[in-house]
């Protein structure tokens, strides 16, 4: 029920003010939360940890994501219209992907920066000439394809960034090095 409150924010439209319903903000928060939870005091060691640790981290991340998604969607199902749930689910993917990208680049504790920046951009410029733009994945109708593709793309980018551990990046660089110098025998 809290989700139906609206936050007034300036927007680049005539008479300049948009009303952003809170559930769009809460969705972003809950999607980013599991990524923030990945932080630990040993974060620098974990960045170069081996397979077993990463396996455990993946399970932890998946569990927290599923758990928070279920709780949030369950709560939203009670309080909000069912079509809104589809919008929430789609924007969830995008926020999660953005949080992963920011988390990998800046550290898990700063994983909120990119989602919040993108949220500000969406809220300000996302509504024009009477309807939401195609890239406004947190507010387009639930059957919209373009924003769904964008959300999936952001999710994939996030997952790729997550997989890009220092070990793998070294391997990828070696692959690239090997293909540029074909006369050298295999160097792995």
């Amino acid at each position, binding site marked *: 029920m809290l989700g139906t409150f609206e936050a007034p924010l*300036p927007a680049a439209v005539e*008479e300049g003010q948009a009303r952003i319903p809170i559930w769009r*903000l809460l969705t972003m*928060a809950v999607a980013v939360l599991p990524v923030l939870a990945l932080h630990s005091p040993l974060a620098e060691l974990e960045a170069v940890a081996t397979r077993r640790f990463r396996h455990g981290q993946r399970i932890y991340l998946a569990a927290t994501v599923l758990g928070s998604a279920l709780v949030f969607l369950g709560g939203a199902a009670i309080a909000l219209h069912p079509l809104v749930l589809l919008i929430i689910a789609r924007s969830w993917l995008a926020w999660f992907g953005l949080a992963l990208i920011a988390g990998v680049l800046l550290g*898990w*504790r*700063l994983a909120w920066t990119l989602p919040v920046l993108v949220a*500000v951009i969406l809220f300000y410029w996302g509504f024009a000439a009477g309807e939401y733009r195609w890239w406004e994945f947190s507010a387009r109708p639930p059957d919209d394809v373009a924003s769904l593709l964008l959300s999936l793309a952001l999710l994939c980018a996030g997952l790729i960034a997550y997989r890009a551990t220092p070990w793998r990046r070294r391997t990828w660089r070696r692959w690239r090095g090997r293909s540029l110098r074909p006369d050298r025998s295999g160097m792995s």
Partner: protein
Amino acid sequence: MRIFWLHVRNSPVRWTVPVLVALDLAILFLRTQYWVGVWPETGAAAQVPAYLLGVLVAGAAAWAAAAPVRRGMQEQLSVAKVHPAGVDGYRLAATTAILTVPYLIGQMVAFAVTARTFPPGVLLWFAYALLGLSVTFLSVSLGWLLGRFFGGGFGAMTAALGWLFVLALTNFLTGDFVVVTGRPYLAVDAFTLAVRFGCLVLMAVALLWLPESGRRSRWPGQGLVSVASAAALMMLAVVTPPVTNRPVPEGEGRICISGRTTLCIWQEQEKYRPLMATLSGRIDGLPTAFTPPPEVREFGLDARHGLDERLGVSPPHFYILEGSPWSYGGMISTEIMSSTFAWRDPACDWGRMSDADQLRSDAVLAWLEAYLVGDVTPDYSTDAPSAMQQAWASGRRVAAERPLPEQFDWAAGEVISIRGEYCAKR
């Protein structure tokens, strides 16, 4: 001061400044540019980024507030010789200084853009600039408060969302915390602005007395009192409505263009003078069947504006909204039609006007609007009944297709015939 600069140079949020400056300028310029050249609109447009940047600023302030916790420096700071409020004071001041820079840069750029023509009314811009500054201070304070309480990781995101929740709360409480336009008949009230800054200063002092996390507080209830007072002051700062009506100016406060109808606008809107002159010329060219009102003023220039329009006590007025000619063209054409087909004319009996004749006068109104604006496709949308919209479309077709003398003949003919049906003589 040396210590202050030391904190600024080593602040964890100094790297956010380029990103925030870019975002601020993007918000300022990647939108309609009608604010250029009018001081109050410039100030309002440049303080809009304060609300949006406030999300990121609150998060950054929380990050800075939690820096000792992240670095594990709490013990060293708690046994330092310096009073903990002193340490926090320097850190809060440095954080505020850094996070205010993007907003100030945005205001300076907006100032420079409008200063090329330098119309009157700079003080109005300054008042809006201070308003935005108070909003930035508010977001920094909120971020600091939440950052101190929730620590490094979750505190920053909580603060970013906390700012959005505060905006939602203001929508619930007052509805006019977020200022987006600077219409010339409105101005920022100096008293409420002073009250707001007073609350923010007191709130900053309250923030310095927050207990350090993980340590016993120095006097009982320190946490509760400081948080409660900070929250109360923040609420007080937020509910003060900043923008009020301006008093009606005397002589030089307005620019008037004489003609068949005298058009008056606020002197701050000096850049619309050529448009008004063109409009006045077009009114002068109307056929004599039309009787335009002697004077039409922009809203707020007459003390009687805004009084109950149904009772007819409000004199003719118009708005210039976002620089659009349709905003003033539409209202001025309505005023001309109202004075031509005057309701209060004792010789006329408009009460028995038939629907068909009503639609004819609607068509003339649409033609008049298109003629005064000089364009036939309006930039507004309407949900008027379809018969009315068709009448308007036919009036605009006349303006688009026929040559000007023929348009005048048609319009004068329509006015004379409608008046002839319902008015005694003339």
